[in-house]
């Protein structure tokens, strides 16, 4: 047995076997066969195409019932595989130029992907990604490798990877993932957020995990204490199973708070909201009073082309109907940084988190932005919808976003399409400059929601994805709480609503401090609701305020952590 330490980012304990996930990477070199070997090479190519076709048919069969939209993507892949022109070119390269099958496939598929990516229609250009997908599948088969994929796992397992990209996790087979271990990634990385949203235990930043944890071997993930046990002995298995049972019992105990009102012991009412993506297990009625963060980028990520206005109206309407009269805050597309889109190739940037992301990117891709804004406006007739812009750093940003919204409104009005003309407009507070100008920006928007993850990253100049800077990313620093105190105060004085939708709102340790700072709207993942409500219902405002005074007077994060430990 060996023990490894890591950063526990999503709580829980799992005992299972390792499934190593590796995105397929292959090296193809310019190579030729001996004269006379052309026919054998051609047979290898034909056999490869046949095998890929069989794989695709199996995937389509599997998906056709449970996810017909995704099945269509693989239908398109079969079509590419059967492309007459590429097939002819490859045969020619093999027979006339004596190229090896993998070199011919790589070159011709890549040339065609480039050809398509140059078409001005973005939806067609985006299909270049499909050609590359089929190319990779064909190369993998030609190299005799099995498929590694997180969307169809054979049995429950612990996923071990160097890193998981949003494109890997978007299709993850969540029912069969017992836990996640990665070598890189911090508490607020995309993998971590997804793991928490799905309630999957996860430990990130386990160096050498892919070396130390071979496929199929036993492993224990203790994401309560940040420990990984490789090939554990019986005693450790027994101890961890006991701990797992106790944890699950505590979670079950917390479940009874799920639908109770969020009221402190001294009857101060707090609103608990829900953060959602496009796929979510909606918690029971009574567990939340608003949807404080509707992330729309998932809608763009799961597809190989940009969603149309109609598709978006449909998705937004469904959320509003599901929310049944509760206000829904739709955050406009927040990509860039760690989130890239298959359907919108973006130039690589030196510092993506300081680059052209979120609102900045939307303002540069105006058609994409206007399509989303029109869709949101059209959906606003189905329920109380609010629009929120991410990455607002200045009043000019807010004004530019509002100008785009006005343009979308006049486009709809010109066509006689109905929408809510008074749709509330708010901002994410996540850039320190706008936190400092909170009183000014509060005059020009209807509400704000604080994104504590990015706010912390930008406040401390500490990359939240980088394990080496984890110690500098101080969520519980008094600096964070002083900034939050200023933001809450500025909006409340302006008579505008303010909430927190970042990870901090769902952290039971932070809940009493946020309450003491004056926050009355907490928005979080469904899985965090019971434990946060349990904390709020077991504290008085006076207790929370006393703690908060001490926190605001503290000088270091470690002092704050010592202060909150008793209430955690």
């Amino acid at each position: 047995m060996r023990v490894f330490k890591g950063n526990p980012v999503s709580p829980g304990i799992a005992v299972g076997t390792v499934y190593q996930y590796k995105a397929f990477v292959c090296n193809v070199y310019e190579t030729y066969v001996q004269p006379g070997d052309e026919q054998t090479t051609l047979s290898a190519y034909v056999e490869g195409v046949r095998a890929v076709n069989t794989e695709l048919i199996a995937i389509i069969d599997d998906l056709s019932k449970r996810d017909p939209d995704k099945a269509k993507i693989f239908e398109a892949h079969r079509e590419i595989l059967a492309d007459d022109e590429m097939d002819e070119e490859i045969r020619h390269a093999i027979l006339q130029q004596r190229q090896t099958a993998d070199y011919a496939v790589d070159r011709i598929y890549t040339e065609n992907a480039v050809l398509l990516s140059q078409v001005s229609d973005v939806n067609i250009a985006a299909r270049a990604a499909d050609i590359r997908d089929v190319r990779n599948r064909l190369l993998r088969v030609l190299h005799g490798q099995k498929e590694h994929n997180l969307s169809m796992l054979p049995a429950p397992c612990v996923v071990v990877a160097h890193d998981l990209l949003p494109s890997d996790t978007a299709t993850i087979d969540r029912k069969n993932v017992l836990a996640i271990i990665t070598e890189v990634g911090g508490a607020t990385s995309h993998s971590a957020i997804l793991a928490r949203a799905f309630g999957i235990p996860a430990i990130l930043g386990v160096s050498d995990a892919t070396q130390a944890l071979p496929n199929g071997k036993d492993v224990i993930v203790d994401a309560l204490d940040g420990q990984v046990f490789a090939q554990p002995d019986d005693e450790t298995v027994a101890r961890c199973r006991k701990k797992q049972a106790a944890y699950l019992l505590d979670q079950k105990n917390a479940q009874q708070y799920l639908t109770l009102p969020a009221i402190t012991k001294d009857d101060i009412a707090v609103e608990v909201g829900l953060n959602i993506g496009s796929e979510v297990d909606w918690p029971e009625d009574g567990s939340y009073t608003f949807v404080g963060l509707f992330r729309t980028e998932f809608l763009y990520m799961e597809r190989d082309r940009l969603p149309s206005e109609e598709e978006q109206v449909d998705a937004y309407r469904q959320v509003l109907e599901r929310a049944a009269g509760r206000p829904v805050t739709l955050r406009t597309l927040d990509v860039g940084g760690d989130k890239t889109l298959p359907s919108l190739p973006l130039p690589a940037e030196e510092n993506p988190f300081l680059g052209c992301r979120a609102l900045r990117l939307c303002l540069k891709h105006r058609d994409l932005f206007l399509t989303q804004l029109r869709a949101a406006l059209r959906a606003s007739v189905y329920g109380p919808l609010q629009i929120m812009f991410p990455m607002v750093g200045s009043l000019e940003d807010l004004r530019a976003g509002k100008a785009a919204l006005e343009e979308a409104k006049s486009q709809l009005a010109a066509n006689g399409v109905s929408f809510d003309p008074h749709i509330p407009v708010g901002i994410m507070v996540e850039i320190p400059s706008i936190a400092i100008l909170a009183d000014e920006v509060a005059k020009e928007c209807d509400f704000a929601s604080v994104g504590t993850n990015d706010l912390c990253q930008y406040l401390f100049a500490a990359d939240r994805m980088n394990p080496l800077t984890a110690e500098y990313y101080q969520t519980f620093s008094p600096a964070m709480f002083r900034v939050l105190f200023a933001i809450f105060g500025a909006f409340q004085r302006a008579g505008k609503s303010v909430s927190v939708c970042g990870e901090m709102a769902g952290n039971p340790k932070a809940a009493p401090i946020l309450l003491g700072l004056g926050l009355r709207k907490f928005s979080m993942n469904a899985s965090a609701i019971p434990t946060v409500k349990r904390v709020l219902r077991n504290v008085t405002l006076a207790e929370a305020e006393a703690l908060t005074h001490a926190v605001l007077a503290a000088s270091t994060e470690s002092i704050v952590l010592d202060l909150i430990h008793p209430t955690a």
Partner: protein
Amino acid sequence: MTTVQTIIKNVSGLHARPASDFVGKAKTFQSAITIRSLDHPSETAVNAKSIIRLLSLGIVQGTRVEISADGSDEQEAANALVFLIDSGFGEE
């Protein structure tokens, strides 16, 4: 060789499903079939049995196209493909 011309009528042009339908139909014939956009004379004719080449033309609604078929069933092929385009691919 049989050559025919027509205009793309359906809203979405030769993209997505209509493009798939067009290529699927073309593949049912023995003849070698090409398609080119008459509105972009600089672009050469492409293999009508290749979804990628067809998409690379970016043919939108209102584009004039020319279809050429060469082979034993060239007449039927040209007629069937023009009929498909003129039917608007079942779009409104």
